[in-house]
Structure formats: C-alpha cells, structure tokens
C-alpha cells in the first residue's frame, strides 16, 4: 500500500485562510491517499467493502483527501496520453482513464479529491509544447470527470479539486488557472511544483500568478511543498493547504524538527528558543569530527540528526518545551540509541514528534495571520533557515 495512506498518523496540515479571504478553512487533520495503489490495487476490495477508504484504514473521523500520485516518489515520465494517465503500484504500471478514475473514487469515497490530470511536464523551453498538452489534457479530464460526478450519487459528498498544470510556462499556467476556475470545482490544486526541476524564482512567480487568477472563496492546495520556509512563501502567495510528507521525510532520515516558530516566547520559554537555535548552529560544526554517521544530504537547517555521536549522552528531550509523547518521556540519548541499534521504535517516536511540531508550526501560522504578523514569523523562520557554519554567531 502506498506509504502515505498507510502511515497511521499521516495528515494534511490545513491553513486557516481567515485573515486573507474570510474563508474558514479546514482546521482538522486530513489524510492524503493516492489511488495509484489504494484505488487501483485494492479497488475491488474497497468496492466490496462499500464504506469508503477512510473507514477502511481506521480513520473514519478524519477528512480524507485523495491525490493522484505520491509526492514523495517521483514517477517515470512519458507515459500519459490524451485519454489516460499512468500510475505506478506494486504490480507495475496501470493506465487509468477518466472513467476508471471515477470508478476508483466511488470506491474510495473521499471528502476531497484531485481530479485526474496530466502533471508530467518537463522544465525549460523545450517543454512548452508539453506544457500546453498538460493543460489541454487536464481540462479535458476535468470536464469528463465533472460529467461523471453529476451522475454519481455516491460522490455527492465529495469535493473535486481542479488541477492547475502548465509546467514552467507562464502563459500556460494562466490559461490553466482561468479555464479551471470557470468549472464548478470545489478547490484548486497547484500541480507540477514538486521536485527541484524548476528554479525557485520561477516557481514562486508562477504560484503567485496562478493564485491571482483564482476565486478568493475556494481553497488552494499545493503538492510537493513542505519545508517551513517554502510553506511560508507559498502562503504569502495565496496557498492554503499543504501535505505533510516533509515531517515524514525528516523522520525517515533519522532527524527531528527543532526549529522555532514562537516569535514572542514568554521570558521563561526564551531558553527553549536558544536551545533550538544552538542545536541548529551546531549542526554545521560537524566537519571537524571523525567518524560522523552520514546525515542525509537532503537534511534541512530546521532539523537535528539524532544518529550523530554528540547525542549519545544528551539527556535533554528532542526539543525543550515540546509536549509530544517522545519529548515528554524520552531523551535524545534514547532516540540516538534506538537509531544506532536500528530499532523500529526510533521511527515511531520521531514521527510523533515531527508531526506534532509541524502541526504546531501551522497553528502558529494561523495565529500570525489572524494577528497580521506573518512577516515577523517569516523573518524569524528564515533566520533559522540561514544557519550554516559560515555565519553561525559565536557564543550564542
């Protein structure tokens, strides 16, 4: 089963768009599910089950969002056609038509779902033709699915999100946004911004341009963006909803999120900030050590690598002041030991911490929006994103 649906604590972090557009937004935790495996591979099981995927996976009370693909695993390119999109599961490649896709959604019964779309775009000018195709196909899929949706009583409760495609070509992105906005969708998905193929400035410019074309009263969801600084940049540019693969990836590489998002801690809590900041700074000072366990190159400035020898006898919690299960009951030394001995419990504890911390971050964002202090939060977080050995402040 695709890993996102199977993590029991997998959630979408929802941002409350109250300050920006007066839209209540979804405050609850939601789950992302990809039909690529859940749907296509156990489609028949879900059909027989009849009660929908949320209940099947033991989360009947959560909002369920169904994406097309797993943002964490890149897909092979070049397989989509005018009538089909390819998905990859444990039994290989599956070609899905709009009709088959809606069959799968009927079995899943999600609260929200991404409409089947062609997001397989190539960066650069060479991709202009391909970008145009992605927009044309996706609109055609959307129209077909909307038609089927009207005739599907099982999906009356389910909200369809239109996917905005167009690769890195501004014209195509605008066209996709305008055209998709004309359709009766419940929300919008900004697709194709996953990965690092696109230059950062291009990405941000396109996101801003796209959301400018979208109605204020419908949520905007983005795939593939998860790092705290990038999340803030997208929120500034009109995005509401993100996935939580980022804390999952942090966990997978044996790391814990320790960045601070409390701009105005009370004086007693000020020490927490300092500890966190100190740890992040020390991250860069590893070069002089011998025998360093290799941290994942994807590791961000917002984390600490618990397998590092320095945590062997560090009896503090992962993050001072954190109220998660791991920080309340265990120490860095213990998690370090679990990682070094390859115990399953390491991932369990880290996941609990990383999710709680990440969701806390989004709560802070919502608070900042309400209080009109997003810029402050952004500056605070960005300062931590800049921690490197080169500019670590001495004696902090």
């Amino acid at each position, binding site marked *: *089963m695709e*890993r996102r649906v*199977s993590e029991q604590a997998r959630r979408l972090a929802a941002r409350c768009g109250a300050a920006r557009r007066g839209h209540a937004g979804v405050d609850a935790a939601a789950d992302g599910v990809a039909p690529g495996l859940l749907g296509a591979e156990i489609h028949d*099981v879900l059909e027989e*089950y009849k009660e929908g995927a949320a209940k*099947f996976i*033991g989360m009947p009370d959560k909002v369920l969002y169904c994406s097309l693909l797993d943002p964490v695993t890149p897909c092979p390119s070049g397989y989509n056609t005018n009538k089909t999109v390819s998905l990859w599961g444990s039994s290989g490649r599956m070609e899905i038509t709009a009709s088959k896709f809606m069959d799968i959604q009927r079995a899943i019964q999600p609260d929200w779902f991404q409409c089947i779309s062609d997001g397989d775009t190539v960066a650069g000018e060479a991709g202009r033709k391909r970008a145009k195709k992605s927009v044309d196909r996706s609109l055609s899929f959307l129209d077909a699915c909307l038609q089927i949706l009207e005739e599907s009583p099982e999906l009356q409760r389910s909200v369809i999100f239109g996917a905005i495609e167009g690769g890195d070509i501004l014209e195509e992105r605008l066209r996709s946004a305008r055209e998709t906005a004309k359709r009766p969708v419940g929300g919008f998905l900004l697709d194709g911004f996953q990965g690092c193929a696109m230059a950062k400035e291009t990405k941000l410019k396109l996101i801003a341009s796209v959301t400018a074309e979208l109605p204020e009263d419908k949520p905007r969801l983005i795939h593939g963006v998860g790092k705290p600084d990038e999340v803030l940049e997208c929120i500034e540019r009109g995005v509401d909803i993100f996935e939580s693969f980022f804390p999952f990836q942090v966990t997978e590489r044996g790391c814990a999120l320790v960045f601070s998002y409390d701009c105005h801690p009370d004086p007693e809590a000020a020490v927490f900030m300092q500890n966190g900041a100190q740890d992040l700074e020390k991250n860069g000072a590893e070069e002089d050590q011998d025998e360093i366990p290799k941290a994942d190159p994807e590791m961000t400035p917002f984390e600490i690598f618990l397998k590092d020898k320095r945590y062997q006898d560090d009896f503090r919690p992962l993050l001072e002041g954190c109220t998660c299960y791991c920080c309340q009951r265990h120490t860095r030394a213990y998690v370090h030991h679990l990682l070094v001995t390859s115990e*399953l419990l390491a991932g369990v504890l880290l996941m609990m911490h990383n999710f709680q911390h990440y969701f806390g971050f989004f709560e802070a964002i919502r608070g900042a929006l309400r209080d009109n202090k997003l810029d402050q939060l952004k500056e605070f977080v960005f300062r931590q994103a800049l921690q490197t050995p080169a500019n670590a402040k001495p004696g902090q």
Partner: protein
Amino acid sequence: MAAPMAAVPGAAPLLRVVAECGWSRARAAELRLPHGPVPCPVFMPVGTRGTAKGITAAQLAALGCRICLGNTYHLGTRPGPELVQRSGGLHGFMDWPHNLLTDSGGFQMVSLSELSEVTEEGKSIEIQNALGADIVMQLDDVVSSTTTGPRVEEAMKRSVRWLDRCIAANRSPERQNLFAIIQGGLDPALRTQCLEAMTLRDVPGFAIGGLSGGEDKGLFWRMVKLSTERLPRDKPRYLMGVGYATDLVVCVALGCDMFDCVFPTRTARFGSALVPGGSLQLKNHQFARDFRPIDADCGCPTCQRHSRAYLHALLRTEPAALHHLTVHNIAYQLNLMASIRQSILEQRFPQFVRRFLSSRYGARIPAWVREALDAAGITLD
C-alpha cells in the same frame, strides 16, 4: 557441591500463592516486585534493546504488561551500562514504570582473560546491577538441550558454582532479585542433582533453563515436571524460552509461573497473527476481503480498529502493519495468561484446558500434550 551461602536477612517472600488448582499443579499467584505486583502465571514480552520491537512503553503498559525482559548483552554493549545508569537505569532509559527482568548476557562467551580479577559472573552481575532490573538472572553455563555426554554435567556443575559467585556479586539484593537457573539438560539424574544443590541456596526464585531448544517434546515436559516437583512451592518458577500457547498451558498445569519468548513478536514480523485456533497468515490472499478483525473477542487496539483486509493490504509494503500485529500478538499472549489465571482462581482450569485444546486441535490433540496433562492431573476426554 559447595556449602550453601547465607540467606539474605529479612527479605520478604517474592511470591504469594493465591489459589491452587485442585487437579493439576497449576497455581495462581502474585509476584511482589519493587515496581509493582505482577499476577501469575505471567508471560513476559521480550524487549531486547530497551524496546519491545516498535511498541512504545505506553502501549505495552496499556496492554496490561507489568514485567518485560531486557537483554544484558545487547544493552551492555550498546549503549553500555554506564550510560544506562546515567539515564536512571533501564527503567529510566526506556521510561518503563513497571518491572524488568534482565538475563545474564551470556558473558561466558566473552574472553575476559586480561581482566583476570574480574570473572564472567562478576561482570554479568555488575552490568545487571547497573541496568537495575527487578529480577536478574545468574550467569549459567548453557548447553543445547540436544547435547549429550560429559559436557552436560560439566555445565550443570559450573552453573552451581557460578550461582554462588553471582549471589556474592549482587550489590543490591534487596532491590534486585537474583534467580538461579536449573540446568542438567535432558538427563533426569543431572537435573535432580542440580535441583538439590541449587535449592539449598536461598535465592528468591528459580528458573528452569536449558529447555525449549528443539528437544523432543516428550522429554521436554518430563524435565519441566521433574523440576517443578523439586522446586519449593512458595518461590516463583520461571520456565525460560517457552511461549507457544500450547506449551504455556501445559507448563502452567505442570506448575510453572513465569514465561518469556520472542515467538509472538517475531511471528508478528512475518505477518502472522495469533488467534485461539492457532495463527492467521495475513499475507495470504484469503484475507484480502476479510473485513473482520483478527479476533472479534480480542479487545486490543488493533482488533478494535482494523480489519484483516486492511492489514493484508498494508502488509505488502508498510512496516506499520507489523506494528499492529505485534500489538495484537502481545495482547493475545497476555490475555491468554489472564484467562488461565482466572480459571485457576475459579477452580475451572481443567475445563479451560480442554476448551483451549479442542479449539486448537479439534480431536487431534498431540500425544505429548495428553501425556503431560495426564501426568499433571488433567484428563482429556
């Protein structure tokens, strides 16, 4: 054999027998340990390196576990006794509020010739003292139960000598209960010798070691019975390495109180779920559309929330599935022991045994099981 060591003065008895079965040698009891009482018969999950394979301490406690095992060799190597001690002992390190039992660590395998004044037994107890478990095991000279010849006698005699040294080396006898381990292989004479010698020593409890290593089941149960017959009534009897449900039931009938085994957690990691009738291999295709829980009568979190079909789908690619099965399998073992205990308290243990065996084997109960139960005083129809 050497003269017995002096008894520890003023030590309160560890075991309180609450009820005895009127037919068999089974008894319902309670261990009074430093970290709380433990009802017996008890199954102790194994948490080798300070964790029961992906289960949090809170989950384990919520399942009703009140004592589990730590492995001295692994913990003695990583993270090492000093670090564990600085974490507040193994209890603090794992954040486990209930009882712990550590094994001896098998230090006889380690060559300590450079440290000639430190013996293997001394080292084992020293590390176990640092870990701080409520029950610690003597270092014993273990031979495989299928070994024959003079090696068996040699190992048994050595184990007795090492017992005395372990008793002497135990720096906190009032907090850490040192158990002796009866050896002697499958030789009744050697086992009897060992029992006679070790029961002269005033230890708080006895373990029956050297069994459950693939030996013939007929010999196995006879050695267990021989051992429990010669062990004092009011001290706990710990049968090491036994964990299959049938073996647990039979050995309770033969008079054992405590058990440990990696089987339930290990089998979970192969996708196998324990049920009254045996086990379900959830990876099998037959479970793909089975929307029932593993066991409708099991109250564990896995059975309350998830279906066989879901677990089957999950097992294909996701470690989380194994976690659910581990929770269930531990719950199964603990529930089994609780049911056994309740039946002894209510003087219906023989009925419990019959029902258990019939649901598992139907009419085809293995011969050794029949014989063992018969010898224990329980006849099967």
